[in-house]
């Protein structure tokens, strides 16, 4: 008891962290919201929001951005779930996992740059397409290449949380399911998948939100054909210098993020019938 009192009395060590929260977590978000109510000349206005919600360009861009983020997330999930599942059955899962994570230690820009070479007109991908008789295609600066590269970059972030939830799955659940007569598929669809859903949700969170804002990929790989919310923000802040409009889109992105968090959040998966603890 006494020790606790002594420790809480000296809270000086907690000051830097508290300052960080105030200055770098709370203040910037408030400033961003504040800024969204100013036009390019520094006057207070609601015009940014009016423009945003009245303009089909902005709305289409938002829908597009969400749609591409969805496609990227879906592609990543379809590749990552089996990977995580098979990883768990290998003899040295930790080692394999390390190998999966390793590419994330290579700078994202370098990986994007690699694809500029791979997907270029005379690049290795087109050489392969010619070899199998399809003939060279325009690969770089297409929607496909944007989705492909984005999914490529995000795979490890999806595999990791799914693997964690699969490895935490008690083997007795699987035995119990088999014991009660479930086939392999039934065991997967009725036991394994529902129980690893938290990992899947965490993975979706980790992939979907960044996918809304991958402006460097839209520029380097997508050739500005795909404009994501992130691209628009970057453009408004660093090119047209219209910070107010950029902040407005930023607020929309934050709202989108909150919705995703809420949909995939850590709420109890089932609390129906009004039963609470």
């Amino acid at each position, binding site marked *: 008891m006494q020790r606790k009192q002594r420790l809480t009395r000296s809270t000086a060590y*907690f000051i830097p962290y508290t300052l960080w929260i105030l200055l770098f*977590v709370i203040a910037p978000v408030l400033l961003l919201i504040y800024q969204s109510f100013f036009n390019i000349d520094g006057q207070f206005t609601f015009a940014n929001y009016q423009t945003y919600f009245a303009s089909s360009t902005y709305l289409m861009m938002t829908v597009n951005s969400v749609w591409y983020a969805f496609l990227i997330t879906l592609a990543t999930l379809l590749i990552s779930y089996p990977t995580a599942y098979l990883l768990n059955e*290998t003899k040295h899962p930790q080692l394999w996992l390390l190998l999966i994570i390793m590419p994330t230690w290579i700078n994202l820009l370098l990986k994007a740059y690699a694809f500029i*070479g791979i997907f270029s007109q005379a690049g290795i991908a087109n050489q392969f397409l010619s070899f199998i008789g399809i003939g060279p295609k325009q690969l770089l600066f297409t929607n496909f290449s944007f989705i492909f590269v984005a999914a490529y970059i995000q795979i490890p972030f999806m595999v990791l949380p799914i693997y964690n939830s699969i490895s935490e799955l008690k083997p007795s659940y699987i035995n119990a399911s088999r014991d009660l007569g479930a086939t392999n598929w039934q065991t997967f669809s009725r036991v394994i998948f529902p129980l690893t859903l938290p990992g899947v949700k965490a993975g979706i969170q980790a992939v979907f939100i960044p996918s809304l804002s991958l402006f460097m990929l839209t520029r380097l790989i997508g050739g500005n054909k795909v404009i994501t919310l992130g691209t628009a923000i970057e453009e408004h802040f660093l090119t047209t210098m219209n910070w107010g409009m950029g902040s407005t889109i930023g607020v929309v992105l934050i709202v989108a993020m909150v919705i995703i968090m809420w949909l995939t959040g850590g709420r109890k998966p089932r609390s129906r019938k009004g039963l609470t603890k």
Partner: protein
Amino acid sequence: MKTRFKWRNLYLWLVFIILYAPIIFLIVYSFSQGTTMNNFHGFTWSHYQDLFADSRLIAIFLDTLLIALLSSLLATTIGTLGALGINNTTRPVTKSTLLALNNILMVSPDVIIGASFLIFFTALKIPLGFGSVLLSHIAFSIPIVVLMVLPKIQEMGTSLLDAAADLGANNWQLLSQVIVPYIMPGIFSGFFMALTYSLDDFAVTFFVTGNGFTTLSVEIYSRARQGINLEINALSGLMFLLALVLVIGYYFINQYSSQHRKAVRGRRG
């Protein structure tokens, strides 16, 4: 049974090939004569020679390292103290609020962090450059340090602290001789994560860097926008080596900490 097992391995191998092919591709062409990544034109070190002769790039590389090391050190310090503070909060509401605030920067998209920091620095009239980049890197590295250190502190439990206090340790001794040695693996993990966050960051830096100061990521971005330049491939080779060293270092620290745990448990048992 056996054939199915092969299919499984095949799938895993395929994923690995896809994950590593672009990286290997980059490095292979860093040794190619010529100027494109389309056909290998025979071995050369020339791109590495260009790289080491490029004093601008070397300076940027050193700046990037400096930012990474400084920001990780400071973030680790602040984050560790923060984790201790969070652990010491008694009211569950306060604790969960602090944790929620801590995680905001973890889940926010980079553009939001970059844009809001840019507004913040401008509002405070902090000049854009080395200082703003350093502050930003410290800021976005702190939460990961907290998340790495906090479980270690919680794992420690109170009986260890009570025992030390019972044996007459004062607060400072408690911190320096009991708590910090115990949570050291967590601190190391936090430091390494902060280091990778910093080295890996592009978007936030891109927003707050201004005109005079550049990090490697930003430099790669602007060069990549101009097209293929095999000097960047040579740079990838070096970065890959650096990443490898970091991964191996991280792996051994993890190994060490788990062995350390085992040893502790063994001694207890």
